[in-house]
């Protein structure tokens, strides 16, 4: 393996053309990932026709580098302005932006840089070790029943994120689940809650919803503070997280690498779910659950480690089986086809050099993220010095473009502003907008996989007993639910809670 890796690295860096493509992909992915309204998918779609003029190896390598850097790039705006550059970075905003408000932007961005690089590098290494066996294991052992169980496991903890009480947390999640029902049902294609308006058949997309709940409502809240004279600009800090802070989060990082990698290898799941699941597990295992959504570094670390860990993993089903995990990997299939190739088992036999150049490129791209990201931390944080009255219109403009760019539908802009207004009122009354977003995203995947699972299990829920992985996840989810209800019902007697109550 090491020999193959060295050969791939030498092939990558021995040609000036390949080096230029590598650097261009790295910077382009970061830039397009960081600017809301465009994403790494936009860049990939623009570049796709041009890959016909590159060698197959350079074309696939370019896309894999864009994938790595693009997933990282969106973290910056999520942390600084509450605008996730890409869906994979949405959970990063849950705690990243509150950290910015607390004057810890440098720490949050620094953590995102380091964890993105670490998660991506670990994922690239795992990918090199055992692509084919892992891919076959994943599709053999993880069908719709197990994916639903995984989503249920994640949803069980969603109520804990950011709400003032458990019940408000659950109501927030339920709002998200209801929003997920709009559009065609995933089993029979039945039209639901469209009210005769055809554009609603496309469903409520989570990107405009996220932009509304986070970016737009935040602008409204800050504008109100400005009007009342209570506005305080976030302090600009360039502090990188200390080694000790990271060392305290070592288990969170390791857990998130595993979660990200695991979600990445499941066909059709990918980095977005990885980020949300990584975040949820941080909440589940966190010592102080109430601190999540309010600026907990572990939230940023978990989300960013998971989404980048999913990038290498998503290449596994693509290369080994020809199964793309998401939109960008689906475009990579197009790059293969432009060169008369099909990703799948034959790639390892017919194009071993290509595979190893791609593996090496992803490894070095993640290493580069660390250094480039460190530079970014020291520079982009200064954007916070821009006065609010200049920043707010730019945020609204970027969010509007971002909402429209997802599907080219005007209704998404309307959804974004409605979510912004709703978020403005919900946030001040103790409801959790992260809970709504979690409900929306996990609800869509959960409903579909539950329906598929029931069809596969012939509508017999007890058939889960014969599927150990699914059973363990369902049992874990149920235990989490029971524990959270127990904590709510049984009076808390810890001293610090009493003090809080007295305040």
């Amino acid at each position, binding site marked *: 393996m090491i020999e193959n890796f060295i050969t791939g690295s030498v092939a990558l860096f021995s040609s000036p053309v390949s080096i230029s493509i590598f650097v261009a992909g790295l910077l382009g992915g970061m830039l397009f990932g960081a600017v809301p309204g465009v994403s790494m998918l936009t860049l990939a779609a623009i570049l796709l026709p041009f890959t016909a003029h590159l060698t197959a190896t350079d074309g696939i390598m370019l896309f894999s580098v864009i994938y790595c850097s693009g997933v990282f790039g969106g973290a910056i705006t999520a942390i600084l302005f509450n605008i996730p550059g890409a869906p994979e970075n949405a959970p990063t905003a849950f705690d990243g932006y509150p950290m910015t408000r607390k004057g810890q932007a440098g720490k949050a961005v620094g953590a995102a840089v380091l964890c993105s690089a670490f998660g991506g590098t670990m994922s690239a290494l795992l990918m090199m070790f055992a692509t084919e066996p892992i891919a076959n294991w994943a599709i053999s052992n993880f069908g719709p029943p197990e994916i639903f169980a995984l989503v249920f496991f994640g949803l069980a903890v969603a109520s804990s994120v950011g709400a003032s009480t458990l019940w408000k947390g659950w109501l927030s999640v339920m709002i998200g689940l209801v929003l997920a029902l709009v559009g065609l049902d995933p089993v029979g294609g039945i039209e639901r809650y469209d009210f005769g308006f*055809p554009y609603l058949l496309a469903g409520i997309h989570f990107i405009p919803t996220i932009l509304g709940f986070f970016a737009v409502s935040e602008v409204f809240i800050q504008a109100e503070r400005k009007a009342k004279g209570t506005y305080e600009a976030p302090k600009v800090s360039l502090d990188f997280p200390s080694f000790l802070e990271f060392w305290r989060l070592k288990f969170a990082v390791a857990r998130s690498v595993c979660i990200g990698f695991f979600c990445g290898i499941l066909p059709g799941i990918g980095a977005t779910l990885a980020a949300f699941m990584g975040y949820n597990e941080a909440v589940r295992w966190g010592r102080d659950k109430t601190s999540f959504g309010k600026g907990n570094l572990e939230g940023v670390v978990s989300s960013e480690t998971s989404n980048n860990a999913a990038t290498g993993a998503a290449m596994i089903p693509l290369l080994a089986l020809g*199964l793309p995990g998401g939109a960008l990997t689906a475009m990579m299939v197009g790059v293969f086809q432009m060169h008369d190739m099909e990703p799948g088992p034959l790639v390892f036999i017919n194009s071993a050099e290509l595979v190893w150049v791609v593996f090496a490129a992803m490894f070095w791209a993640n290493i580069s993220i660390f250094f480039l990201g460190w530079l970014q931390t020291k520079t982009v944080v200064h954007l916070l010095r821009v006065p609010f009255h200049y920043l707010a219109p730019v945020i609204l403009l970027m969010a509007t473009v971002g909402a429209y760019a997802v599907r080219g539908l005007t209704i998404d802009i309307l959804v974004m502003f409605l979510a912004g207004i709703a978020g403005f009122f919900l946030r001040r009354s103790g409801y959790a907008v992260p809970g709504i977003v979690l409900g929306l995203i996990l609800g869509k995947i959960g409903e579909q996989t539950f329906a598929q699972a029931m*069809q596969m299990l012939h509508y017999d829920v007890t058939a889960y007993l014969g599927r150990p992985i699914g059973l363990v996840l369902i049992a874990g989810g149920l235990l989490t639910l029971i524990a959270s209800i127990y904590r709510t019902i049984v009076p808390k007697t810890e001293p610090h809670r009493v003090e809080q109550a007295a305040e």
Partner: protein
Amino acid sequence: MKRHIKPTIGALSLAVAIGFSGQAFAACATDGLPAKLDKPGGFPARALTMIVPYGPGGGSGQVARAMAQAVTELTGVAINRDHKPGGSGTVGMTAYMAAPADGYSVLEHIDDASSAHALDPSRPNPATDLIPLVTSQITFSQVYIRTNETRFKDWKGFVDYVKKANGKATIANVSKEGSMERISMRYLTDHYGIKIQQISFDKGAPRYGALAGGQVDALFEQPGDVRGFLDAKKFKPILTLLKERPAAFSDVPSITDEGMKFEPLLRFRGFYVAKGTPPDRVKWLQWAFQKAFCQESYQKYNEKKFMNLIESYRDTDGTKNLITTTINQYRDVYKQIGLSK
């Protein structure tokens, strides 16, 4: 009570329309068209917009990209693709119908638009409410199993297995009730009087992964979409839903070989312009899109996607016939199964 579908043999036959390709496009269908056509009144003076009602990664997104590239190569006119996915093509169609009929907006759509109109006449009929420019992909469906499957090796063995499983056998299929895939499966199960559990997957990758990973027993799909698995010998077809065996699958039984008499439904993708577009502009667009079909880049693309196994080309009138035939067939089926009155 379950309603069975009566085969519509008397209806205008799709088999007539299928046509098997002969010598792999020695002469392309539109070679007779002029090599150049003057732009009427300077049209188009700017880039065209192609509305695609599906995402960029799937079959529609890919054919839209290939056709746009071919038209640009031929005419030098750029085409911007505007993907508006959602609602099984409804959202893109609705957006397109609201666009001005000036020829600058064209639409890519698939046979789902025909079945949607058959089910709900208030939805646009692509043959009469739009002007077809060209149909550039027509393909058929097959049933696939894993190559290393040990419980059954061929279609007969699979049918026996399904009968013994008594409703527990599974096949991965698309989700939408009334879709080409679901109706075709209904033809098969009605013929044999068998029950099989169809698992709904709306995206390709999880659907193929379900068969590759042994989560389901079989897969209903079109050959171009699973070509990688066929070339890698991971999947093998056990039934072709055509009346005759195409040359590339000469060892796979057709529905006629298995004693079935229904008219196979086809998947087709084409390009349209709005009714009311000035006729000279329509004429130029028809020339550009039909001629582009024969561009080398497009032909190579179709070959890669197994879209050369049956004749994939239809001009405006050919597309209208194909759509009208398809709509009539769907209407019959929907009435029989109680989906429409």
